[in-house]
């Protein structure tokens, strides 16, 4: 079967010399660059650093839970509450979402055969605005601000710090939405000839779905934050009251909205599995539909209203969202039935992706149990545990993507040994940290900051949770070291296609040259043009 109009040489010789790669020199060029690869690698490096910070915050919060009757680790109840909130906010807005956006900023233009990302200056503005927002967010929490006080537990916050935190969250959302506009527009408008939406690689497809879902959820969150900010800085009538601020944003960290953070993860797994197995992705159309359905079900703006736990839609979504995940597992299993990963392939990335997906499935099942009325888990720490599992599993898969595409990000591959070393800490940490809180919910441990005595079983689960956060933090540090090492200049660049990849990003240099592709790409005639080429022995 023929999939490209050119012969093998036309495609496989597009690897540029490294001298043509985009490498900003000096601070000015770095700040002024609109190169998507540079922006993507910056996103990934900073977000991985934030994930290590998140791991430490998780450990501190977990340690505080060892004795729920006293505040031992922090100076006061408000500090403990702020750490609890900071874990969530930083994890989502400085860790998970920017990690995926960074990968997409670097990889999506390559995957769709575009010479650049759409609106490169807007993409650059989005990154620097995000970085500023992340700095302000950390500053807001450090200045004793955060999102106000825990309901019913008051010992004072710094009003300027709270206002700064709200401003920072607003800025972060605007920046992430702007970056999403650039990515989604690239997928819609800048595809190479022949690449229909059905032929778009699964990661690019997942980012298109995710971006669309984020427009429908993050913008509602932005509205709530504006409302809270205006009220907080003026009358504090309702939405801006000290103990009501977190209520304005809590829904963004709970189901179904939290699943929106996991959409790109599904695309990454779908990219890595067939390449590792060296076969074509089975049921490609089903994969696209399943990712789209997962995205549709994760539009959780309706959950911003209070008292939705008993509504039919909330319960139904909790159940139905298992279906697309099962469909994806079926497609991946069917693919792996055709061929198993070889030791020369992306084993580290494959293990991270697949085990991360298993952890994500565990999170989805936990979410299903959470909406079961007879179990009465709403309002318990099971809700927190569910969020933790979903987000940390998504992080694990995001790290798999960073390892898999590292040669395209920086020109150097992540050391395979370090990638494999990170697998168990990340996956195990995600499951233990979230699982501890989730099971503690069965022992009626309340959600949020716990300041009352809990039952014995919950005590034990809190210890498990602390171990999980610690293990995850170690995994995040390993990843940070592994990713940072690829930024250090060394003598050799990675090969153009280290994994025998199937999609267009593997047809250009590592890192890509200016304009991404040296020559005009031939017309694409399937979703895996390079695999088609390999299967035909390079013949047209």
């Amino acid at each position: 079967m023929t999939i490209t109009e050119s012969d093998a040489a036309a495609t496989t010789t597009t690897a540029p010399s490294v001298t043509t790669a985009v490498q900003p020199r000096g601070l000015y060029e770095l700040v002024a660059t609109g190169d998507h690869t540079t922006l993507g690698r910056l996103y990934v490096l900073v977000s991985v650093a934030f994930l290590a910070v998140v791991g430490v915050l998780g450990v501190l919060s977990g340690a505080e839970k060892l004795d729920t009757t006293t505040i031992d680790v922090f100076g006061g109840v408000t500090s403990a509450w702020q750490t609890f909130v900071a874990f969530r906010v930083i994890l989502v807005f400085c860790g998970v979402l920017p990690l995926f956006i960074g990968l997409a900023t670097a990889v999506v233009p390559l995957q769709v055969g575009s010479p650049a990302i759409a609106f490169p200056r807007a993409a650059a503005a989005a990154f620097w605005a995000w970085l500023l927002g992340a700095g302000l967010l950390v500053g807001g929490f450090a200045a004793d601000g955060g999102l106000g006080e825990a309901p019913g537990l008051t010992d004072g916050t710094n009003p300027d710090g709270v206002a700064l935190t709200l401003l920072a969250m607003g800025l972060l959302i605007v920046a992430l939405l702007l970056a999403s506009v650039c990515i989604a527009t690239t997928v819609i408008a800048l595809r190479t000839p022949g690449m229909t939406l059905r032929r778009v690689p699964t990661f690019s497809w997942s980012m298109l779905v995710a971006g669309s879902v984020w427009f429908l959820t993050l913008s509602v969150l932005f509205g709530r934050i504006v409302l809270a900010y205006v009220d907080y800085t003026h009358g504090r009538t309702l939405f801006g009251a000290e103990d009501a601020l977190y209520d304005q944003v809590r829904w963004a960290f709970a189901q179904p909205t939290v699943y929106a953070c996991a959409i790109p993860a599904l695309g990454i797994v779908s990219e890595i599995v067939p390449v590792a197995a060296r076969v074509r992705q089975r049921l490609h159309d089903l994969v696209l539909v399943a990712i789209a359905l997962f995205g549709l079900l994760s539009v959780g703006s309706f959950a911003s209203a209070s008292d939705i736990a008993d509504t039919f839609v909330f319960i139904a979504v909790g159940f139905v969202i298992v279906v697309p995940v099962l469909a994806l597992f079926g497609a991946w299993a069917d693919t792996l039935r055709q061929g198993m990963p070889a030791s020369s392939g992306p084993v580290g990335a494959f293990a991270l992706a697949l085990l991360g997906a298993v952890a994500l499935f565990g999170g989805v099942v936990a979410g299903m149990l959470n909406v079961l009325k007879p179990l009465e888990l709403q309002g318990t720490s099971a809700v927190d545990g569910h969020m933790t599992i979903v987000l940390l599993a998504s992080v694990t898969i995001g790290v798999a993507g960073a390892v898999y595409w590292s040669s395209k990000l920086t020109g150097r591959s992540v050391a395979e040994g370090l990638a494999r070393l990170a697998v168990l800490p990340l996956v195990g940490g995600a499951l233990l940290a979230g699982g501890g809180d989730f099971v503690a919910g069965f022992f009626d441990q309340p959600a949020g900051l716990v300041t009352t005595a809990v039952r014995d079983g919950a005590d034990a689960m809190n210890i498990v949770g602390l171990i999980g956060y610690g293990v995850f933090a170690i995994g995040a540090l390993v990843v940070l070291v592994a990713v940072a090492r690829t930024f250090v200049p060394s003598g050799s660049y990675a090969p153009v296609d280290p994994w025998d990849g199937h999609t267009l990003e593997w047809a250009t240099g590592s890192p890509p040259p200016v304009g991404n592709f040296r020559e005009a790409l031939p017309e694409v005639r399937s979703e895996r043009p390079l695999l088609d080429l390999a299967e035909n022995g390079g013949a047209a």
Partner: protein
Amino acid sequence: MATLTDQALALPPPAELPRPRTLLVGTAYATVAAVTAFVGLFGVYFAERAAALKAGTTWIDTGTISLPPGGMMLTTMVMSTVTMAWGAYAIRRDDRSHAYIALGLTALFGVAVINQTIFNYKSMGLTVVGKDASVQALLIFTITGAHLVMVAAGVIFIGLMAFRALAGQYSSRQTDGVVAASIFWYATVAVYTIIYFGIYVAK
């Protein structure tokens, strides 16, 4: 023997311009995000209003918000949709002078709406500061303030596209910028229509 005119007529048509539609698609996404933010705010507003009415209290007292300024704003915005459509129509026909007039008028209407909104704020008997602060005032000022920002963004967008058209970037062969600006502007008008009927009229 072929004349010069014949040869000129026999020339092949110019190559079709690449039309990746990036600006249209990007604007559509940004517009969806902006409108969704308003949908979320309207949801909060109507939920609070319904709760107040269910409790048997008055949401906004009669006379607190005067209708004529809001009505004038609606009229202005509706007129701006006509001029915006005129601008897009004119640029498609290379009628540049009319395109500039139409885009300029649309921007002028936008500035007028900003002016009217500020006038409306001063005439409203609502405040978000001090002991008289209320949830109603908070929601109305937040929603209409956000709309004010959207109008300002729309005016800037239209102005930028008008200058680009002036520089020859947009013509009958490439109208994306002006059409993109019109998409955003129509959304701005649609949001105000909901504000007018949902907040000012329904109270």
